[in-house]
């Protein structure tokens, strides 16, 4: 340690000497309110991710990170520069979000950020990044308060759906399909808890009855006791907007519980994936899933899945890879719009200009629909549809298909 210290101080001294006699060039004048990122010719444009890539929630972040990586592969280069992805693990908790944000904020060469994974990370991390002049676009934060005008942080946008939209559509569908008594399950995550609450409130507004609001732990495997408890309340539908592992357990076990043989089941975009179909098994047939309306866009997603499989050797791990792909694409488009190239080929990107350009995104065709950002950073296509799984074979998963799609669009 001591030796390292000596080495370093000698180096610092040496380079200060060098700097004193080095030639100086007239600097580019940056007029941006938040400053500029300068990218020398041949240097890469650095975009960062802030996602949970280790620990029990890793699949959520790794999934999104891969979406960004594929977006970079597809883009190949931006204004003659390659794109470099750097990033930090956020751990899906507030302290991890804060630490990652602090580290990213200290790196002045980062242009923009795709992240965070979990809403708790954004609450602790977004203010730090925003104050440092960075703009972050999240692919999987769904908590309503993040884009609530009273609490919105200037540099924060997202391509994930606000729970307010999705939960309400789910409730409206449930009511429209004749359900009057519903039960909900959440797993103690911000996402699920929020979504089921929105669902419950909207469902009650419409005149339905919420007969039971249950909660589990995301690591639970035996769901039969909680389902038995729910069965006693006699719901016609169970709404569980949770994630793949626990969602699979609930779906697989729901028919084993007496009283729930014919209950309708419904999930949300957290389990809108072939992976979930595989985990849930045959009981998934007839289950409803809310998700962005896939009929709005074409074959892009199928293509994406193919690339994913060749690049990583497995299917997507969670539900937000396409949102992440779109988040990265929005950022790239905005960079193309605002970057200025000066005489010696150096690229200058104004941070405020970039932020404005991202927030001005309009009718951007992404994998998850036509994206338009609101003033408080909600960029997701607000068109939510409800799908019904018609075939439990994961190989038939093709929600974007024109005819015979599985799952099949049933609402609106």
């Amino acid at each position: 340690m001591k030796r390292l210290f000596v080495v370093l101080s000698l180096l610092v001294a040496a380079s200060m000497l060098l700097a004193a006699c080095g030639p100086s060039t007239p600097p580019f004048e940056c007029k941006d309110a938040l400053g500029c990122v300068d990218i020398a010719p041949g240097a890469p444009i650095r975009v960062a991710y802030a996602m949970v890539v280790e620990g029990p929630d890793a699949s959520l972040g790794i999934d999104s990170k891969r979406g960004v990586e594929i977006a970079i592969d597809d883009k190949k280069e931006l204004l003659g520069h390659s794109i470099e992805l750097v990033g930090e693990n956020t751990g899906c908790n507030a302290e991890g979000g804060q630490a990652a944000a602090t580290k990213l904020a200290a790196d002045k060469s980062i242009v923009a950020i795709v992240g965070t994974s979990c809403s708790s990370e954004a609450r602790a991390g977004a203010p730090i990044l925003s104050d440092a002049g960075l703009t972050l676009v999240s692919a999987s934060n769904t908590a309503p308060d993040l884009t609530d005008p009273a609490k919105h942080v200037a540099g924060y946008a997202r391509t994930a759906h606000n729970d307010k939209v999705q939960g309400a559509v789910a409730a409206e569908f449930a009511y429209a399909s004749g359900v009057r008594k519903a039960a909900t399950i959440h797993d103690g995550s911000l996402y699920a808890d929020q979504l089921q609450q929105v669902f419950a409130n909207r469902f009650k507004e419409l005149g339905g009855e919420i007969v039971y609001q249950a909660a589990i732990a995301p690591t639970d495997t035996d769901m039969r006791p909680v389902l038995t408890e729910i069965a006693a309340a006699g719901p016609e539908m169970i709404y569980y907007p949770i994630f793949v592992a626990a969602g699979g357990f609930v779906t697989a076990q729901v028919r084993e519980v007496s009283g729930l043989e014919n209950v309708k089941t419904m999930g949300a975009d957290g389990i809108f994936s072939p992976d979930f179909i595989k985990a849930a098994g045959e009981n998934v047939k007839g289950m409803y899933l809310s998700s962005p309306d896939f009929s709005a866009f074409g074959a892009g997603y199928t293509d994406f899945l193919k690339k994913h499989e060749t690049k990583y050797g497995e299917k997507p791990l969670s539900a937000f890879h396409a949102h992440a792909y779109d988040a990265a694409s929005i950022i790239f488009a905005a960079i193309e719009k605002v970057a200025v190239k000066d005489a010696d080929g150096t690229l200058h990107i104004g941070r405020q200009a970039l932020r404005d350009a991202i927030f001005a995104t309009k009718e951007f065709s992404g994998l998850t629909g036509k994206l338009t950002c609101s003033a408080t950073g909600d960029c997701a296509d607000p068109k939510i549809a409800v799908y019904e799984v018609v075939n439990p074979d994961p190989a038939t998963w093709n929600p974007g298909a024109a005819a015979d799609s599985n799952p099949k669009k049933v609402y609106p």
Partner: protein
Amino acid sequence: MTKSWLKRVSATDVVMWVVSLIIAGIVIYGSISSLQSGKYDGNTWKDLIVYGLTQGSIYALIALGYTLVYGILRMINFAHSEIYMSGPFASYFLASALLTSGFMDKQPWLSLILVALFAMFSSMVIAVSVERIAYRPLRKAPRLAPLITAIGASFFIQYVFKGLFGAGVKNYPELDVLKGQVNIFGLEMYRIHVIVLISAVGLMALLYTLVMKTKLGKAMRAVSEDKDSAALMGINVDQIISTTFAIGGVLAGAAGFLYAIMFRQVSWYMGFIPGLKAFTAAVLGGIGNIPGAMLGGLFLGLIESIGPTLFLAGLGIPAPNQLKDVIAFTLLVFILIFRPTGILGERLATKKA
């Protein structure tokens, strides 16, 4: 007489009684109001009991591994949860190979047995290697050193599996032979539950016989009693310890296999929570005690399954199932207050514990 009795009562005892009374009060009041609410019929309770027993028998099999190792080395083998995970995870690849080759459809039972054997074997290999590499050099170290090693080994195995095979959830094939219900003594039960219960009980009986009736079992008990004397009696202590780990591994692999065919999902993270539960079960039953681990596992499974509905639902607590671990741990404290060494543990808190 009364006076001397009073003298022996300390403030601590009074506090503990009060705590126990409060817990007992909640439990009794909650149970009565749940039962009176009329929301749950006999069938509900029967189902809950079956669920509890199936989950509990898996806990019990894992708990046996903790208890065997503890009995011999007096150490908590924290990595046991990963030993449990590695078996079904490894045999997932065998299962999917059998499925794609069509063998599984032709010979479902034989395939299942092959998969089960491979799971047990894989867990055994991991268990023995962990012992050989990480624990054996620490035989004489103070007790915290192997605990930390075990925690380290646990992380290492988890993340090696995640790194090698991916972070995603892997699914066991759905087999028709495991589906449907059977009628046992007039009780309609799912076939899979019956298979899990019978296999678990069978394995436990086998282990009990092994430890109590065979020469190897005698040697194990001798080593557990006193390593040095056992060595003097001509017992190869290292070998017995290895064997113990192997047996624990086999049971964990079997538990993992049963889990995998019942719940059909395996992942690198699946061991942690059941491991913790099984460890709790082992302590509950009296760690180091083989029937104790079985009893503790079944009891814990039952409490987790019935507890929220029986004790809490009647009190009007929202989402009681979320609190099932709270119930389990509170009852653990409750039991340990009266029996500080678990249900079947040695009566006196000897210095071993």
